[in-house]
Structures are given as structure tokens and as C-alpha cells.
């Protein structure tokens, strides 16, 4: 998570207007859902990976790390789609060739979709996405919640890590049972600190005139029409070629 955040704040495309990244990535995400996956999926996956690594300059390793978790789920889950089960006179199961296709299609489609999201999270600081969703009319309460969670995740992650290091220093994880005990203690401690944190944060916010709305200034980013149009043209070309390839295949 720290790595994702780091690249989101430091990549070459960080200062682009979020629309220039969200619109193409969003359109491609929709395309992965409507186009035949086996033709369009690899194209979309490849182009998103290309944009992330060569465009925005995020290391390939970081991208693979982001894709690894969903990919692992797919590898574990997809084979079950290839199994057909029948309960007629007892329990039977067998591999089905249709199922294999379905599993393959699902995997490719899901990976392509995840690559769109990975591109977005690795190249766009969350604050930009928040500012954009505010403009798109997402309710203020929800946005404030996201904003606070984004801030506090790091506060608590830091405390959790320090807490665990301190426990380890006193051999808190020397055996499995002691480890369980330590984790429990750490969780309880963090919960208590979270409650206190909330109380003190309320005092701090009230001291600065908080009356129920967390309004802040947002950095203005200039929208570049050439970049946006390039992105949309790219999406159009990918969509078209995915569609043609898909038609040729079937």
C-alpha cells in the first residue's frame, strides 16, 4: 500500500488533470466488460501496462505487485468454473471444455479490468480522485469519510508497525501461542488509541473552527485537451480492434 501511494505521488503523470487518466481508464474498464475478452483483454492489459510503466514511469515490479493479489485469487478461483457438478444419482463432477473457456475468459477479463484500476491507483494521488469526485457530485459526507480514512490509515499503520516491533523486541512472537497473544494485545491497544485519537482530533478540528464540514482548498490542475483527446482516440482504436478481432474469431 505504501508503495502504491509512493508511486501515485511521484510518477511522471502525477500532475496531469485526473480526468485525463480517469476517463480513458474508465472507458477501457467498460470495454473489458462489453467486448469479447479473449481478443480485447490482452490488448487492454498490454496498453494499460505500457501506459503505467513507459508512460508514467512506474517500475514494472510495482505494477506486478499490484496485479499479484487479484491474479492469485483468479488462479485459485477460476478452475472451479471449469468443473461441472451434478447431483443426479449421487455426487459427480467432471471437467468441461466449455467451463475451461469460461474460466479463461473470466481470468483474462478480470486481469484486464484490474490493470485499468492499477493504472489509475499507481498514477493518480488519491487527493486528485477525491477532488474529482467532489466535482462530480459525490455527497460531501462520503468524501470526508474517504479523506479521513486515507489520512488515518497511515497514522494507524505506523503505530501498528511500531507496536509490533516493540513486541518483537520483547520476544512477543517467539512462539505461535505468544504470537497470537501479542496480536490480540496489539489490536486491542490500537482500538483504544483510535478512540482517543478521534476525541483529540475533534478537539483539534474544533479549535480551527470545525462546524461539521471538512472544507479544504484543492490544487487546481489544468486540463490538457490534446492529452485527453489522445487518450480517448487510443481507447477508440483499442475498442475497434478488439471488436474486429473478436468478430473474426467467432
Amino acid at each position: 500500500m505504501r508503495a502504491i501511494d509512493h508511486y501515485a505521488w511521484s510518477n511522471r503523470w502525477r500532475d496531469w488533470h485526473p480526468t485525463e487518466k480517469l476517463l480513458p481508464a474508465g472507458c477501457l474498464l467498460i470495454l473489458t466488460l462489453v467486448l469479447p475478452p479473449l481478443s480485447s483483454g490482452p490488448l487492454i492489459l498490454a496498453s494499460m501496462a505500457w501506459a503505467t510503466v513507459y508512460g508514467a514511469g512506474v517500475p514494472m515490479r510495482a505494477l506486478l505487485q499490484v496485479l499479484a493479489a487479484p491474479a492469485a485469487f483468479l488462479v485459485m478461483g477460476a478452475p472451479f468454473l471449469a468443473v461441472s457438478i451434478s447431483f443426479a444419482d449421487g455426487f459427480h463432477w467432471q471437467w468441461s471444455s466449455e467451463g475451461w473457456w469460461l474460466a479463461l475468459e473470466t481470468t483474462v477479463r478480470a486481469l484486464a479490468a484490474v490493470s485499468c484500476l492499477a493504472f489509475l491507483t499507481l498514477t493518480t494521488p488519491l487527493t486528485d480522485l477525491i477532488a474529482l469526485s467532489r466535482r462530480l457530485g459525490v455527497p460531501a459526507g462520503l468524501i470526508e469519510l474517504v479523506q479521513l480514512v486515507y489520512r488515518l490509515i497511515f497514522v494507524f499503520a505506523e503505530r501498528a508497525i511500531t507496536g509490533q516491533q516493540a513486541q518483537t523486541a520483547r520476544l512477543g512472537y517467539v512462539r505461535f501461542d505468544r504470537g497470537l497473544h501479542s496480536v490480540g494485545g496489539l489490536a486491542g491497544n490500537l482500538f483504544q488509541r483510535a478512540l482517543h485519537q478521534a476525541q483529540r482530533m475533534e478537539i483539534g478540528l474544533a479549535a480551527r473552527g470545525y462546524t461539521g464540514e471538512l472544507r479544504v482548498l484543492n490544487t487546481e490542475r489544468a486540463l490538457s485537451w490534446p492529452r485527453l483527446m489522445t487518450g480517448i482516440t487510443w481507447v477508440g482504436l483499442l475498442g475497434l480492434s478488439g471488436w474486429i478481432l473478436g468478430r473474426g474469431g467467432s
Partner: protein
Amino acid sequence: MSGPLLSLQRLEYRYPDQLLALRGLDLAIERGRKLALLGSNGSGKTTLLLHLNGTLRPTNGMVLLDGQPGRYDRQGLNQWRRRVGLVLQEPDDQLFAATVEQDVSFGPLNLGLSEAEARFRVHEALEALRITSLASRATHTLSFGQKKRVAIAGVLAMRPELLVLDEPTAGLDSHGVTHLLGALQGLHQAGTTLVFFDARYGIGL
């Protein structure tokens, strides 16, 4: 106007669990002063500090603003907090926004300033603490000392008449302390009344 900016009369505070934290406390904070309140841990410093901007309401006694009893209704507290800025000891308790600029803009926007004016105030406050270069940084990537200065900037951007700081130098290395005290000295010369709370004697005021 003459008379103290803020004064406490026979202040007493008892916590809901009956712990008596303050008793019979008198204090007058004159305009333009620089006041340091020293006390060991657990002596009631933070409890006292939370009375200075109306966060806690005394069980007995009074807090006076310009000789008038402090008002604890919503409007009264808003007025109060425009004039008395409070910086908490732990910056993570105060910084809530994702970037430095956003966080510092929170107070000015709550004052009802326009975006342009708020932007100016943010710049001014960052300048005063010599951290303009941090403006677009993500809050969670800052060092402790940097966070501390951002927290002060967030209050300073509201241009309070009185700035109250809870252990401003706690957790800072000697370089950080020098830097911070220098910045505070500048604020004081510019006319802000300062009140520090500290647990250690001899911080270079």
C-alpha cells in the same frame, strides 16, 4: 483596548471521574506577551490549555475574554476560536487532510474567507514557518518536526490574536527546537501573543 486579552478567575476543573485537576487558578494573559507555563507531567497543563479556547468548561470560576465572560454557545465558541488559536502537542491529532496545503487551508475556509484569500493565508502561514517547499507534499510522508510545523501553520493561517501551544518542542531534536523557536519569535515580533506549555525548564525562550 486595555486589560488582559484573556484571564482566568478562580478556575476549578473536576473531571467526570471526580479527579480534581485545577483549583483556584488565576491567570491574566496580557496582549503582546510571551508566556511560558511550566509544569511536570500530570500537573494539569493540558487541562488548563483546553480552557483557553473553551474546549473545557470550568466546574467553578470563569474564563474572561477582553473582560467579558466567555460564551459557550456555538456562536460564542466560534468567535472565541477565531481569536485564540490552539496547537495540540501531537501533530497527528490535528492534521487530517491529505496534503499540507489542504490541511492549512481548513481554518481559513472555516473563517468564511474566499478561496483566493484562503490560498494567500496558506502561503503566508507556510512562509512564516519557512516550510513553503512542503505545500504540495502528502501529509503522511512528513517527518515529525515537519508535521509539527504544519500543525502550527494550520492554526496560524487563521491569524489568531493569541496562539496557545501545548509542548511545542516535545519530540524535536535541538535543530528542530531552534528552528521552531525562531519561527515563533518572528510571530511574536509580528504582534501575536504567545502562550507555551512545557514540561521542561530552560527551553530557549
